[in-house]
């Protein structure tokens, strides 16, 4: 594991940039633990101050320090993305591995359901959830809903790997040595799909954070928990762009874009690492 990361850092520019961006964002999130202001308090600093030595990223019209507000917001947003990604991984691993290994009618039924979840436009469904739940909608609840909707694409990916694993010799050996299906999947197949699971985790985080930002910006979420989307929502409510308080919108947007690009670049470089052909060509060992 250590060597892989070292290799990636050495040979892969995308990975380096991605790690750099994510480190910045995570530092920002970590700083929230040292915030001098409680995250939900308003009018703790003079409102509408531009970025200065006192207030590094300025202050909002609600009298909050953008820097400290941003640090708690990105922490919540990252935690949200991670929660959705981890929960939905459970579903996609179970569905992907069992569908690929068992095949037959189990595979057909699971994949029919799987394809349905890929095709269905989820955003209207999420909006419908908010419409019905209204004020009972919390960040945790949204994470649960989104993880039960956003597993399908990745389980198809895992299934395709599991299908080829099934034909490998060691699977036959495990069957003959009397391992149960669960044991085979967990001890023999799971390690092989772990790299893919890792890269899909990052992509899934991007997906869920993107949806969270969008929902919050429209006000279709618990907007009292500070998140990146919530910050942009309040800035829009106070017409920050028109009023010239650009720092209220710009810094959250920059932070979230850094998160997206960072996660994406890491995911892409890991995918490339998994595929030995592109790894060879990158290290100068391939034909082209």
């Amino acid at each position, binding site marked *: 594991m250590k060597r892989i990361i070292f290799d990636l850092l050495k040979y892969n520019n*995308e990975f380096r940039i991605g790690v750099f961006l994510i480190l910045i964002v995570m530092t920002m999130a970590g700083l929230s633990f040292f915030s001098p202001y409680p995250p939900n308090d308003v009018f703790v600093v003079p409102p509408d101050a531009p970025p200065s030595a006192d207030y590094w990223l300025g202050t909002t019209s609600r009298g909050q320090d953008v820097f400290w507000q941003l640090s708690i917001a990105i922490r919540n947003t990252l935690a949200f993305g991670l929660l959705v990604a981890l929960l939905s991984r459970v579903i996609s691993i179970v569905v992907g591995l069992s569908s690929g290994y068992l095949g037959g009618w189990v595979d057909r039924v699971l994949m*029919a*359901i799987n*394809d*349905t*979840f*890929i*095709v*269905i*436009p*989820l*955003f*209207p*469904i999420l*909006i*419908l*959830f*908010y*419409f*019905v*739940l*209204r004020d*009972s909608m919390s960040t945790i609840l949204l994470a649960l809903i989104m993880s039960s909707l956003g597993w399908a*694409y990745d389980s198809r990916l895992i299934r395709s790997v599991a299908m080829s694993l099934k034909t490998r010799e060691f699977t036959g050996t495990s069957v003959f040595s009397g391992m149960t299906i669960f044991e085979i999947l967990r001890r023999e197949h799971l390690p092989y799909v772990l790299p893919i699971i890792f890269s899909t985790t990052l992509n899934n985080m*991007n997906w869920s*954070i*993107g*949806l969270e*930002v*969008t929902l919050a*910006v*429209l006000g*279709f979420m618990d907007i009292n928990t500070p998140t990146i989307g919530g910050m*942009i929502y309040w800035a829009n409510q106070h017409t920050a*762009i*028109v009023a010239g308080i650009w720092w209220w*919108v710009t810094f959250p*947007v920059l932070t*979230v*874009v850094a998160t*997206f*690009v960072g*996660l*994406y*670049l890491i995911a*892409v470089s890991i995918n490339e690492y998994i595929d030995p*052909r*592109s790894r060879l060509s990158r290290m100068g060992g391939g*034909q*082209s």
Partner: protein
Amino acid sequence: MPAYFNFAIKRLWQFVLVVFIGINIAYVITHVTPIDPVEQSISAVTSFGNTSPEAIADMRRSLQELYGLKGDWIEQYISFWRRILQADFGPSLSAFPAPVTSLIARALPWTFGLLAFTTLVSWSVGNLLGALAGYYRNNRSLKFFGVLAMALHPVPYYIVALSLMIVFGFIWPVLPITGGSAMDVQQGWNWQFVASVFHHSVLPALSLIMIGIGSWFLGMRSLVSNIITEDYVVYAEIGGVAQSRMMGSYIIRNALAPQVTGLAMSLGGIFNGAVITEKIFGYPGLGTLLVDGVYAGDYGLVLGVTSIAIIGVSLSVLVIDLIYPLIDPRVQVAS
């Protein structure tokens, strides 16, 4: 031909399943949650002013009838499906007494036009550029485009649309940032109106294309760079096949099949993006209708748009699936 027939039946079945599961999710959300949508609608409507208790009781009764909340759950379920199949979502609360169906019918062409245009452009341009970038790997400008696509691709629609709006609406105000056409132009098939529609759709279309093009570009580039190392391509190269022919019938043709499947799989996501983009630019399509419906507490409208979205997206996926054998003839041979 029987092979194609089998294939079509399978796809048709998948379409029915998607619609069935999708509509059932909508049913479960609206009926099994502890919060009563009727009470929600009533509190949304009555929060704006004084309403007499009789009027509220009257409203409650008619809402319960409208949304099929009468009788036990089997009756409710059947009447829910009847409404969906008849495309009858009752009158809209926010635009009373206009029926939801007519609101949707008015918004549908806008969304369809915007989506069809932007998807077609970003898919074909992204794939073409991606194929070129995979083939001519050392071309400077294509490499630069690759970096750009990589940086832009993971950013969500909302952020791109907001940035475009700030740039072209406030910093350099040259394009209209809201509406589907100019207010003072008569709607119809006249030159002025068509021009105005195009002018207003530049920013929403641009933001959808900017996000969409990247994933096709990146996907096609990696597909093509894998294909050019295949034996048959190397053989054709040695055999002196003309470069344009190589590109067209040896490389792109083969790389296109997964990209068409990818298009079918990502239509739902593209629709999600359009919802947000429309809302930001005040484009008079389904997305704006949906979001405004939520703000106004209009249950019938929200349910109607959600159902139409599910059916519309899965129908488009079906169409793409059915023309897929044209690109990948292997489908016709397989069982």
